């Protein structure tokens, strides 16, 4: 039998998560013939199957319960019965997932993008073999390749993840019942999202990490606000602790810390980072260089060390957020096809779906000082906002970072709807506006967006004081 002929495409995208999907659509929009290869049967990657979509659906239930508890001001004693079924808190998941998959698939179809289900392996920089589920193989040749194959949870050698008692972010949502207690190993984005979610659902959560505070990469003021909310829901954080071993003793998961301390919990959640899904891809055959941490090395335009291969999304490492991945996918294709990339996505927001939410866009205070020599910070606390009092959610903070000439440089928020609020600042940043725009214009009342006016007044006051001095 003759071998199947090689298929030829202008652009080949490996992976259909946020980065891959956007890369494919961007290429198709400029008339290129595009193929997406993904190991999953449906579009969306891990984001839809085990990542953002399912976890945020569960988070919405947890946030609703926490919000109801706060709004009732102890009038309602809202606690979930012991052993509540996790599935009962995610009843809408199937609907949410189906709707998102339908939307993504329709977009691929509308743009004439071909999709194959299979596992890819580089034979050479421009030639890729795809092993199909039915054990057949096909070869693709493309002018431009975008690698967006995502990541998977890292399993440290001293943490035996069995997906039964010790879980990772792929298996945590397979829990049938809410555990009475949960130890969380790590204090990054995923650790904090799940720790705050389970604490809000009444689980006794203990987060353990070597860091001195959760989300240590964030502005300390935002972290302090997060810790306050997390601890109020009963969460504990053990800072500066190193894990020696983890084992299931037949009844509980015992986490032994260096120094002899032990933490016992019904279940353990290991969130110690993610590693790139490059296993089986044979990146060496493509001439792709990896970083020391096992991610694909790329330049500012997402170009790898191989001339016609780009990479985007989790596979290139931090920040590994969906919004960033989308921008990376778009940038990769535009640069690869010789389209202008300037002014694209200079201000990509980041959102952390903890309870409460955290969001950022632009420069933080330290970055602004480093770049401009000095900076002003205007603050608005949620308890200054009528809407926050009406909502019964007065924990929250918006910080506006302002240049010495009054230009807005960044915004950082924690609190209810922070991930939505930050887009107002994003548009001001894109427009290069002065912080005074928030003082000179009227916002709906009562709204949380009023925080911009309050924070801007604070910053403008500081600017005036500086000018007077």
């Amino acid at each position, binding site marked *: 039998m003759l071998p199947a002929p090689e298929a030829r495409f202008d652009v080949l995208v490996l992976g259909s998560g946020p980065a891959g999907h956007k890369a494919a659509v961007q290429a198709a929009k400029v008339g290129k013939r595009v193929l997406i290869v993904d190991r*999953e049967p449906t579009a969306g990657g891990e984001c839809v199957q085990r990542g953002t979509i399912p976890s945020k659906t569960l988070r919405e239930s947890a946030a609703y319960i926490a919000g109801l508890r706060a709004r009732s001001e102890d009038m309602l004693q809202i606690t979930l019965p*012991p052993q509540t079924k996790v599935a009962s808190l995610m009843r809408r998941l*199937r609907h949410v997932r189906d709707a998102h998959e339908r939307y993504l698939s329709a977009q691929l179809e509308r743009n004439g993008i071909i999709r194959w289900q299979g596992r890819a392996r580089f034979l050479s920089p421009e030639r890729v073999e795809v092993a199909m589920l*039915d054990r057949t193989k096909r070869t693709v040749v493309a002018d431009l390749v975008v690698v967006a194959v995502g990541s998977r949870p890292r399993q440290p050698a001293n943490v035996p993840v069995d*997906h039964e008692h010790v879980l990772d972010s792929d298996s945590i949502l397979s829990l049938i*019942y809410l555990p*009475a207690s949960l130890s969380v190993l790590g204090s990054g984005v995923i650790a904090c999202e799940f720790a705050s979610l389970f604490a809000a659902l009444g689980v006794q959560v203990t987060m353990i990490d070597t860091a001195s505070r959760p989300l240590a990469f964030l502005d300390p003021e935002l972290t302090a606000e997060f810790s306050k909310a997390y601890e109020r829901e009963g969460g504990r954080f053990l800072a500066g602790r190193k894990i020696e071993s983890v084992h299931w003793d037949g009844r509980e998961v015992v986490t032994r810390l260096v120094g002899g301390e032990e933490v016992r919990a019904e279940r353990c959640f290991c969130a110690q980072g993610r590693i790139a899904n490059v296993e089986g891809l044979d990146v060496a055959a493509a001439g792709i260089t990896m970083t020391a941490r096992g991610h694909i090395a790329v330049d500012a335009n997402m170009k790898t060390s191989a001339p016609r291969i780009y990479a985007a999304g989790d596979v290139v490492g931090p920040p590994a957020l969906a919004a960033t991945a989308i921008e990376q996918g778009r940038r990769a294709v535009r640069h690869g096809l010789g389209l202008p990339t300037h002014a694209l996505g200079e201000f990509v927001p980041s959102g952390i779906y903890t309870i409460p939410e955290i969001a950022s866009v632009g420069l933080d205070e330290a970055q602004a000082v480093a770049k401009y020599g000095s900076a002003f910070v205007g603050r608005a606390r949620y308890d200054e906002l009528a809407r926050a009092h009406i909502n019964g959610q007065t924990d929250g903070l918006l910080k506006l970072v302002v240049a010495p000439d009054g230009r807005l440089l960044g915004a950082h928020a924690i609190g209810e709807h922070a991930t939505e609020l930050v887009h107002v600042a994003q548009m001001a940043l894109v427009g290069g506006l002065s912080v005074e725009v928030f003082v000179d214009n009227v916002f709906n009342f009562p709204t949380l967006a009023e925080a911009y006016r309050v924070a801007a007044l604070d910053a403008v006051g500081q600017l005036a004081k500086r000018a007077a001095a």
Partner: protein
Amino acid sequence: MTPSVQNRVELTTEARTWLETHLDRELELPLLPEAAARVVALCEDEDADARALESVLERDPSLTACVLKVANSSVYASKEPIVSLQHAVSRLGMSTVRNLALTNSLQGRVFDVPGHASLVHDVWVHCAVTAVFAREIGRKLRRNVEAAFLCGLIHDVGRPIVLQTALRLPRSLGTFTGAQLELAMDTYHERVGARLVKAWGLADWTAAAVLHHHDPESAAPYEEEARITRLADLLAHWVLTPGSGPEDFPVLDPVVLALNLYPEDLDALLALRERVLLASEALQ
């Protein structure tokens, strides 16, 4: 188990009518014994401790013997020999003890058909192997491991009940041949098993997996649980067929594709053959 004889034999209309009447309407389903019911309840109670579990076990010698035997088996035993019931519970864990309680009850109340010990034993061995394979599939697919195990363990629970019922066929209607008994089990075991699972208060997805383990795509919204049970069922058949090698497994079965298992994923499951057999011995 997989229907094996339907093309060769038939049940008479009278026998079929009698059987369906008894299985669907007049059958008294076996009750979960009190001790097992209390163990299952304790394992679901977040305030229960190992001591409460031990006190239930102490009052049921048969269950105690089973727990000690399994804890001392080669799968669980370490260098230290088991010295007490408390020690055994600690080594096995609550969920394993719960599964043992269910297993013990199934063996005593359901998988006990005088005169057909060998046939029923074969079904039990098949269930034990299916359960262990289901657990490994659940682990691989990041689905709930305990739920997968339980679905596998009881997926064929209807077979011995159908057999017990068929053996009571009135003489006026004749006697079932061995092949007819197998046909009756093949035909009715899913629906009878699902009724038992519901009567014992087990989860909806367990009932769905038992009812649809030959047709998992009909198990909405629990297709995934039914698919895992189906694949584990196929793997158990394969592993229990003497002389079978990897080339004998139906690698392109629709359930393999529906579970999105690539060749290396399936090969990894096939490679667990010896480990699964060893682990399933603890349940036998």
